[in-house]
Structures are given as structure tokens and as C-alpha cells.
């Protein structure tokens, strides 16, 4: 019985992240539009877009290979699996030990690796420019992310997200310099990883500074739908990660009881709304930066995270 219950909860988590991801994207777009005094598309527009794209034919470039057709499924599967492993409304889910935070980051790395390959498959210069810039950005964002993981893992004594969340929710944490630095670094990394302003602009298609959109330019129909959905899931994953590590309040512990789970779901949706709104505000007030300013931006994250790690190594009290 308990196994079935656990299994159902894990399934619920997978479905929840899949269903909420387009909503979060739509919500951020809506808030941004309202901040710019536009009416903005309806909240459910991303779902409609996805359904419409799914039903359309795929137009493949003449020399696209089998890899090009497999990659959308691969990227989507990897991102979905990663997103389902981050605690959202309840910690200690059935398969939460499958991958710790380092492995989750690496699974996302696999998704990016293949997406960058897809950009090069058609042999257009736009795809190449997108892929080469994407790997440049990731070559700084990934080490920064790993350093952030180190900081939190050293504080919590674990790289297991459920254990980390439980620790961050306990009274032992307190205010720490290293955690503050890690939060700033994590925010920068999350913005870069999700191709948000000021690193990249998710709303443009025709501008040379674009990175992610240039990479997926050749995709259409159901392939494009999967890639958009994977992007939405990735945004949700990073927001959930920040929520789970730095605002772990309300996450239900690993017990069998319905009330904490309802509280957990409500708290999770609330956190998504707050963080999504913050992202929209941030994107509205800041300007897009030149692509070669991005390394400085990400280098700052790397340095902050490294500083925080050094502080942890030097003394346990920071």
C-alpha cells in the first residue's frame, strides 16, 4: 500500500511539473506585459501554442539527420526527469535518491549538449552561432552551478536535495554569508541557463545576440513544441530549486498524510507565483547586455560561488 502511495506521489510530482511549466511561462509573460502597460496574452496561451504546434507537420531541413529528429525527445525526457527529481511540494519522494543535485545538473547538461548538437545539424550559420554561444555560456554557468552545489552541500552535509531542503528548513541554518553569496550566484546562473534577459531574450527571433532561439531555429511542429516545453520545464526547475533550497517552507515531509501535502502544493504554487513575478520585474527593469559582457556577468557568479566555497572550507561558521 505504502509503495503504491509513494509511486502515486512520484507520478503526481511528474505530472504537476509538466502541467505547471507552461503556466509559469505564461504567467511571467503576462506580468511582464502588465508592467509594460500591455494587456498581454492570456495565461493559458502557452498551452494553446503547444497544442497547435503538436498538430502541425514537421518541416525538416533537407540534410537534417536522424539525430535532429531524436534530439527533441531526448532533451524533453532529460529535462522532465531532472525537473521531477527536484522536491516541489513534498520531500523524500520515491525516486528522489536516483540523482543528487550534482547529477541533476549533469542531466540538464546532457540536454544542453544534445540541443547544441541539433543547432549544428542543419549546417546553417545561425544554428552554429547559437550553439557556439550556448556552450560558451554553459562553460561558465556550469562550474558556477557546481560551486553553488558545493557550498550548500558543505553546509547541509549532503548533495541529496531532500536532505538539503530538510536541513535548510531546520533551525541550524541561520544567516550565513556563504548562503547569501550562493543565492546571488544561483540567481545569475538561473537567468543565464534559462536564456532570460539580460543574457538572452526569449522573445526575439531575428537578432544576432540571440543564443537559445538561434540554436532551435530549424525546429518546427511537434519538435518545436517539445523544445519549448523543455525550456518551460527548465525554468520551472530552476525556480523550484531556488524555492526548495532558499525558501523550503511548507514542503511536506516524507510522511503519509494528506493535509501537509495540500499545504505543500499550495505553498509551492505560491512560491512559483512570487518568484515568477520577481523574474518579470527583473527582466523589465534591466536591459539586454552584449553577448561578450555575459562572461563577465557569469564570471561574477563563478567568483561569488568560489568565494563562498572557500569561506566554507576555511571556517564552518560562515
Amino acid at each position: 500500500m505504502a509503495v503504491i502511495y509513494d509511486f502515486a506521489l512520484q507520478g503526481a510530482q511528474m505530472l504537476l511539473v509538466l502541467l505547471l511549466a507552461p503556466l509559469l511561462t505564461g504567467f511571467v509573460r503576462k506580468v511582464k506585459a502588465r508592467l509594460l502597460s500591455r494587456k498581454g496574452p492570456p495565461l493559458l496561451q502557452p498551452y494553446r501554442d503547444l497544442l497547435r504546434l503538436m498538430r502541425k507537420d514537421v518541416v525538416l531541413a533537407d540534410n537534417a539527420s536522424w539525430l535532429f529528429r531524436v534530439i527533441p525527445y531526448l532533451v524533453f525526457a532529460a529535462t522532465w526527469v531532472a525537473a521531477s527529481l527536484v522536491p516541489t511540494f513534498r520531500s523524500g519522494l520515491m525516486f528522489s535518491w536516483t540523482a543528487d543535485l550534482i547529477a541533476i545538473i549533469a542531466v540538464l547538461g546532457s540536454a544542453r549538449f544534445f540541443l547544441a548538437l541539433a543547432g549544428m545539424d542543419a549546417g546553417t550559420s545561425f544554428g552554429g552561432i547559437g550553439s557556439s554561444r550556448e556552450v560558451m555560456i554553459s562553460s561558465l554557468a556550469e562550474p558556477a552551478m557546481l560551486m553553488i552545489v558545493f557550498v550548500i552541500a558543505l553546509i547541509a552535509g549532503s548533495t541529496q536535495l531532500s536532505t538539503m531542503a530538510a536541513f535548510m528548513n531546520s533551525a541550524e541554518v541561520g544567516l550565513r554569508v556563504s548562503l547569501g553569496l550562493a543565492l546571488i550566484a544561483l540567481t545569475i546562473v538561473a537567468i543565464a541557463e534559462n536564456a532570460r534577459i539580460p543574457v538572452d531574450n526569449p522573445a526575439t527571433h531575428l537578432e544576432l545576440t540571440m543564443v537559445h532561439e538561434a540554436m532551435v531555429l530549424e525546429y518546427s511542429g511537434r519538435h518545436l513544441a517539445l523544445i519549448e516545453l523543455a525550456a518551460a520545464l527548465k525554468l520551472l526547475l530552476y525556480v523550484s530549486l531556488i524555492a526548495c533550497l532558499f525558501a523550503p517552507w511548507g514542503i511536506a515531509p516524507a510522511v503519509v498524510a494528506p493535509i501537509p501535502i495540500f499545504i505543500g502544493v499550495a505553498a509551492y504554487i505560491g512560491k512559483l507565483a512570487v518568484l515568477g513575478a520577481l523574474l518579470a520585474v527583473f527582466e523589465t527593469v534591466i536591459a539586454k547586455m552584449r553577448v561578450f559582457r555575459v562572461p563577465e556577468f557569469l564570471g561574477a557568479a563563478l567568483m561569488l560561488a568560489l568565494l563562498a566555497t572557500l569561506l566554507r572550507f576555511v571556517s564552518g561558521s560562515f
Partner: protein
Amino acid sequence: MMVTVALFGVLTLVALAPIAIAILAVPLSGKPNATGFVYGACLIVTLILFLLALHVLLEHPAASTITLPLGLPWLGAHFRIDPLSAFFLVVVNLGSAAASLYALGYGRHEEAPQRVLPFFPVYLAAMNLVVLADDAFSFLLSWELMSLSSWALVIADHRRAENMRAGYVYLLMASFGTLTLLLSFGLMAGGDGAYAFDAIRASHPALGTAALVVILALIGAGSKAGLVPLHAWLPLAHPAAPSHVSALMSGVMTKVAVYGFIRIAFDLLGPPQWWWSLVVLALGGVTAVMGVLYALMQRDLKRVLAYSTIENIGLIFASLGLALAFKAYGMHVAAALALTAALLHVFNHSLFKSLLFFGAGSVLTSTGTRDMEKLGGLIHRMPQTAFVFLIGCTAIAALPPLNGFVSEWLSFQAILLSPQLPSWGLKLMVPAVGALLALSAALAAACFVRAFGIVFLGRPRSSKAGAALETDTNSLAAMYALAATCLIVGILPGIFIDALAPVTQMLTGARMPVQTGAEWMSIVPIAESRSSYNGLLVFVFMVITGMATAFAIHRFASDKIRRGPAWGCGYPDASPLTQYSASSFAQPIRRVFGSLVFRAREIGTMPPPGSRAPATLTVQLRDLIWDFAYAPVANAVASIAERLNYLQFLTIRSYLTLVFAALVILLTVLATWP
């Protein structure tokens, strides 16, 4: 017993060399197939040796030794198989067997088989002997045999000037490395000449001597393995050899060098000092990042792979450094974890680097070029090679669910244990090395996106690439076998970690917890609440969700496909020249890291208006290590040689005076010696 069988195997390999020469020299009836005979025999012998070593590693019988009446008269030649040598024999012979299988197909395209066939089995035998040797004399002799036979293979294609230069640099560096190892063993053996490893283990050298030994061993083994700044020969020599030999040099011989270091630092010298690890960690971290940055700047496919070997060696040495640090402070379980990470990466790297070199060799045979700027679109012409090469790229980029990630993950878990180390130097060094390793992992992913994307994706950049043909079945079999092993180690790492337990038990006095009993075959280095990873489930989840999604979408939404020209924001010029090239792909990273590391400069010339001259863009990269470390030494040696050249043209009287003077000086020194 075991060691006797192993030596018989090695002897068979050595005997293959004259047989190969005989077959090649004596034209028998019809067309003698020396290639098939030699590689087939090598395949069988190395497979037997592999199984033997595997048996020793898994069943761990007591160490088996033998002393042959060869070598130095008062010493004899000692050989021995213990868990450490058994593990490295597994690595050596698995790589050798794969290379022999590959060469059954690839070797047929060899232009001058007489320059490869006699040396190949000797090279395999020498690598086995280094690992088997149990005294300093046999070790150094085998080491030198390994260097010389591989040198002969490097210059197999001797008509190309760059290969001869590569061979020259390699020979110099190999001699230098052997010299430092010789000094290192000499210091360990002491004044009595106790060269047997047992005698060395029993004697405990003084602190200063031990330190000197470690530094010399690090230089000697490190120059063979490719530690920065001793790596300069590696990217020249590894690509110059035929591809199956490149695979062995990069995938296996560098591991034999790692074995040499482990044997000296962990086994022969006894308890380590903490600061040794500081040196090893720093060198490892720097090597990892420098190696991959160099790799990103290359346009020769095999050279990319050679530089990436340097990166992986850095990773291995960084883990070894951590293991030394933990061992020095008596944290045995942590030392076992770090050592397991290093050894597992040794095994993993031998798998995927051989696989990638085989793939590069197949590309070279069917297109005739290693220049990435002339390749492209090979996924259509060589679909199977592309598939296995992609698996190799994913594995080496440390991406789950393949094997490269597992060893990388274990290294990071070991780093996370290191705040408990008491020394301040290490407290500051370890996080910095952690950051360097993370950076190198991310850059490696970029490097292999570039390698695969430019060579196999897009459109062909030359007519030869457009007319390439799929490679032969033997080569494909070798590549598929290695790719499958990569996947198996990636999804069932617990079995392989457990197999390493006797080695860590022997060297650190502890082992990682038993993994095969863990739930769902996860790996749990310390405790499940602390960290765990399950490659099998990650793989299964990804496959199931991916396939279910594909099925659902095809069934319920749409499964139609239309073909059209590439969109590219307005149907651009279809010429393959409009694609991103290897150097343009590297441009963003060159701009971020290259200006500091390589003094990268882009010089563009724009002709004046009206002129029809083409505009040009030249990229200048400087190899600072070569310019500041190697060039001055080379220049100094050359200028001294120039001056001493004068001595060659003296009269007989001057020579006699010189000889007499030398005699007097020596006698004076002897007389006044305290």
C-alpha cells in the same frame, strides 16, 4: 602461477615481432596476410591476458611472484601480480584487445605494414611488462622498451616531416622522463642497490629523500602521462601514429604512466607527507583546464583527442592528489573514495578515448583527412561510426547516464569530504581545484559538441567528405564493444566500484562500502542521506519518458514530415562554406579564455574601397608554455652545442693535452676527496 602464465603471454607477443618480419620478408605462395595474422594473434593473446588479470582482480588470490635469472646478476628479474597490477593489466589488455580487433580492419589500409607490424606486439608486451615488473631494473627496462617501440610506431609514416619532428620531441621527452625515474629509483634503492620492490618497501627513506623521490617520480611518470607543463610531446606524437596505436598511446600508455606514479607514491614509499598532495593537486587541476582549452583551439581531429587526454590525465592526478592528502591524514575511507574515483576514471578514459581514436581513424581512412575544416555531414555517409563516436563524445563530456560522469561524480564527492582535512594549504587548494575540475568538465562538453558537430553534422566541407564510405566490420565491432562497455559502466557502476576494492584496500587500507547490495543498484559512496546516484534509473527513466512521449505524439497529434531547404532566417546561400567552421565555433571561448591563456589575437585586414583584394582574418595563438619553458632550453642546448662544435676540429696535440688535463683534474679530485 598467475604471473608465469602472464609472462608466457608477454613472451608470445614478443615472439610475434620476428614472425611478422619473417612473413613480410619471405613471400610465400600467394599473398601473405601478415596483417591479419599479427593482429589476430595479438587479439587472442591480449584477451587471454585480460581474462587472467580479471580473474586475479575479482578472485584476489595472494600476490603471485616469480624471479627469473635475467637482468642484473645479483638481482634477477622479479615479476609479480598483485591487485594494483591486476587492475592495470585489465586496462592495458582490454585496450590492446580492442585495438587489435580494430586493426584487423584498419590495418589493411596501412601503406607500409613492415613499419608497424613488428613493433605493435612488442609495444603491447612492453606495456604489460611495466605493470608486471617487481624490481626497478625490469621496470625501467620495460618502460624504455615501451617508449622505444611506441617511438618506432610514431614515425611509421616517416615521409611526413611533422611526424619526424614529433618522433624527435617524443624521444627527447621520453629519455628525460626515464632519466628522472632512474634517479628516483636510485634514491629509493639507496647505496646498497636494493632494487627489488620488496626491499624498497621494507626500507623507509628519510623525509627529504622521499620528497625528492616523489618529485622525480611525478616528473618522470607525469611526462609520460602528459601533465602540464611536461605535455608538449603528447599532442605531437599521439596523432602522428596510426590510429589504433594513437588509441593505445592515449588510452592505455598514459595509464601505464599513472600506474608508475601510483606504484611509487602509494606503494613503495610508505606513508605520504601531506604537502605531496598539494603539488599533485595543483598540477592536476591546471593540467585539466589547460588540456581542454588547448583541445578547443585545435582543428586537427586527432590532436583534439590528444589534448583531451591531457585534460583527463589532469582529472586523474587531481583525484590521486586528494587520495594522497586523505591518506596522509589517516582518513582511510575518504582516501579509498578518491582513489576509486581516480582508478575508475583510468578505466573509463581508456574505454572512451580508444573509442574516439578509432572513430577518428575511420574518418581518416574514408576521407583522407584529419582536418576538421574539411569534414562535415559524415553522419549521413558513416551512420554507424557517427553513432558510436557520439556515445564516446557523450561519455567523455561527463554526461549521465554514461561512464565519464560516474568517475567525475565520485571525484566531486571526494572533494566534498575534504573540509575535514586539517591543513590550511589543502583547505585553500582543494576548492580551487574543485572549481578547475568543474570548469574543465564544462569545457570538455563544449569541446566535444564542437568535435562531433563539425565532423559529423552539417554539410560536407570538401568533396572527399561528401564521398566518404562507412568503415569495415572489424573496426565497427571494436567500436561497438567499447561503446557498450561505456554504457554498462555508466548504468551499473556499482559492480566496477566493487571490483576496485582490493586495490584501494591494498593502497589505502580501506575500501568504499559494498555497492552491489544497494537498493536498485544505486551507488552510495558514504550514506544514502548524503549522496547517491543511480545511472540505471536515470537511463531507464529517460528512455521510457522519451519513447512514451514519441509514441503519444505520433499517435495522437501528428507524425507527418515534410522536407524543405534549411530555413536559417531566410533560406541562406546553400554553399557549405556558409556553415560555422571549427575555428568559428571556438571563437566565443577563444575570446573569453584565449586572450589570457594563449594571448589570442584576431588580426583583420580590410582592403580599401575599390580594391578587389579579399579581406582576411588571421587568428594568432601563442603556446606560452612552449615559448617560455621549452624554447629557451632548446635554444640554450643549441647554442652550447654550437660552441662545443669547435672541439671537433682540434689537432691531435690539443686532444692529447685535453686528455692529460682531464686525467690530472680527476686524480686531483680523487686525492682531495674527503
